[in-house]
């Protein structure tokens, strides 16, 4: 009989260890799935986790794929810390792509200036889209979870309308795409011969900035307090409205930046296929990364590997690409389940009395 015994204080070791445990469990389950499907688990593992990283190009693609995940997750984590549940980063990502595209198409093509304007427009458009749930939450008490999510569908249709209508390439035979961007509107490539571009620098900057904001400023302290205990926050005079606004705007801005980097990077134009689910996957990245910038960096790399591994397992093992979503869900399940170890200890024994009387954590 396994029972849970409360720890006197939350375990700092477990806070770091449980994501590792969750990852190991996910991989073991993955091997089991491969075996059940009649695939050689070792080969499955190799295709999923080793094959993608065998060449320089492979590694560059891996890093590139991780960048939008890290950007979106870093922004979301700030909100999640303050218990602001923005789950519409996917829509904010698309708006960022639209904002950047508008600049690329209409602001002329000047070295550096165009790119800077695109970055600003992407950030602003993402934040603007996130401002809608923030406004509706603070003024009308409407759930930011549902509003931000509904806006994902609206954003998708907005992109579709734009690329079929006003932004369509006039020479593109009415196909749903804008013109290809001018070189001045493309992010510079970091490693020649690959698609890895300056967005990697954005990621480093954003992770540093959110670290400083959350852990080194008074505002960040207040946000953490507000998230951990709403009562204490009220007592300390922290405005819940400010938290909602900050959480959503920062999340939207980061997602918007990621959207900008997608059109100014690997796509080089806006099409109706711009959304690739980064905004949703970033929610998992944020949690697996413990809402901490360093953790998010690692979790985004892991998640990117899941995506590319899923692609390769389709190419080399004939498995559906949706297997990567299964892995993502599993990872989050395992993490949430093992999180109980932060506040509780596992004990072997038969003391039913104590088992039933799991005591509350501090507070």
């Amino acid at each position, binding site marked *: 009989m396994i029972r849970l015994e409360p720890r006197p204080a939350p375990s700092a070791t477990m806070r770091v260890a449980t994501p590792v445990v969750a990852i190991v469990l996910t991989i073991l389950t993955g091997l089991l799935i491969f075996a059940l499907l009649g695939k050689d688990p070792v080969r499955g593992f190799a295709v999923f986790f080793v094959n993608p990283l065998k060449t320089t*190009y492979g590694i560059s*693609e891996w890093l590139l794929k991780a960048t939008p995940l890290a950007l979106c997750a870093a922004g979301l984590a700030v909100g999640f810390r303050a218990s602001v549940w923005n789950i519409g980063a996917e829509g904010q990502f698309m708006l960022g792509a639209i904002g950047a595209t508008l600049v690329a198409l209409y602001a002329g093509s000047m070295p550096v200036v165009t790119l800077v304007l695109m970055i600003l427009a992407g950030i602003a458009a993402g934040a603007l889209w996130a401002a809608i749930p923030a406004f509706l939450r603070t003024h009308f008490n409407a759930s930011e979870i549902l509003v931000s999510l509904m806006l994902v569908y609206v954003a998708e*249709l907005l992109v*579709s*309308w734009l690329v*079929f*209508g006003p932004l369509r390439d006039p020479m*593109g*035979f*009415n*196909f*749903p*795409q804008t013109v*290809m961007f001018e070189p001045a509107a493309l992010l510079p490539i970091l490693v020649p*011969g690959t*698609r890895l571009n300056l967005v990697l620098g954005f990621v480093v900057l954003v992770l540093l900035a959110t670290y400083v904001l959350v852990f080194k400023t008074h505002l960040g302290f207040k946000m953490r307090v507000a998230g951990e205990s709403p009562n204490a926050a009220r007592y300390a005079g922290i405005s819940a409205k400010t938290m909602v606004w900050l959480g959503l705007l920062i999340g939207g801005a980061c997602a918007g930046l990621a959207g900008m980097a*997608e059109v100014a*990077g*690997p*796509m*080089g*134009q806006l*099409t109706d*296929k*711009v*959304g*690739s689910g980064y905004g949703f996957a970033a929610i998992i990245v944020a949690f697996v990364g413990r809402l901490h910038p360093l953790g998010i960096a690692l979790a985004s790399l892991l998640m990117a590997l899941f*995506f*590319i591994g899923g*692609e*390769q397992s*389709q*190419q080399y093992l004939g498995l*559906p*690409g949706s297997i990567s979503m299964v892995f993502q869900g599993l990872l989050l399940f395992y993490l949430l389940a093992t999180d109980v170890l932060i506040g509780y200890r596992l004990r072997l024994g038969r003391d039913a009395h104590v088992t039933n009387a799991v005591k509350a954590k501090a507070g």
Partner: protein
Amino acid sequence: MKNRRMLFQAGLASLALTAAGYLSIAQAQDPLKVGFVYVSPIGDAGWTYQHDLGRKEMEQALGDKVTTSFVESVSEGADAERVIREMAASGHDLIFATSFGYMNYVDRVAKQFPNVKFMHATGYKSGPNFHNYNARFYEGRYLTGVVAGEMTKSDVLGYIAAFPIPEVLQGINAFTLGAQSVNPDIEVRVIWVNSWYDPGKEREAALALIAQGADVITHHTDSTAAVQAAQEKGVYAVGYHSDMSKYGKDAHLTAATHHWGDYYTLAAQKALNENGMAESIWGGIKDGFIDLAPINPVVPQATQDKVAQLKQQIKEGSFHPFTGPVVAQDGKEVLPAGQTMSDQALGQMNYYVKGVSSKMPN
């Protein structure tokens, strides 16, 4: 000394020759690796299904001279470039990318792999090792329009469409013109479902069209939902992509079908024999790209004969579905009497012809 040396050299040369001979045999035995990138699951009726049928026909025709592989459900976003590149990097000699949205990614990968041959369906860009191919779907549409125009009693035809690109508009307009050629009173109603594949929405759209009086339904989307809905409601349907009669045996009048196998075989053969590439092509009935599914016996023999005759004329080039006068919905003449529409004008089609009663969505 000299002789020995010469002998030695001769021996070396013959050895080299033999080796070269072995090598060339080995090369001849090395099958051509052909890769396919599909935009949706293969399924068993739609766009990708027909391409996969083409892949299998090519395998059948060329036997062990080719090996094929495919990746399905590849999104047309930035990830497509990695999938296509991985295919090229893993030793494929010939790659077919079968959806429009891959165009710019194929363009980029083709430049990085000059020795790999890339074929892209339904786009307009090309390069030295990057050709494109497409089919004149509208030829089949016109013929099915004739059948629909003869069979409708309400004079209302329903059309479920995915996205307003020229290919889809050509289909709607050709269908309308075909129906009008036998029944000047018909009107065509269109619903855009904003998706190539959404069976639920396609079905709802079909039911909405039927409720508005349409008694022949056709679709430019991937699922069989429209044919099934027509079967349930006791109206007629015209399939698309493949013969969909097994999804509505009473409803299914005929279908405009796609056939890629011969072209895929030709392209692989060219690559095998002369290391060459099949020409870029916009192929129609004449080229075997487009055909009609068997016509339902409920269609009067006179109509069947008429369709067969028209099909022959299109094949011979003596008839073009878009022959003037073609009048747009707003009454403007887009093609004067007696002229046939140029490929360029077809490729830029962005209007409805007169006879379509719904409004353009944007």
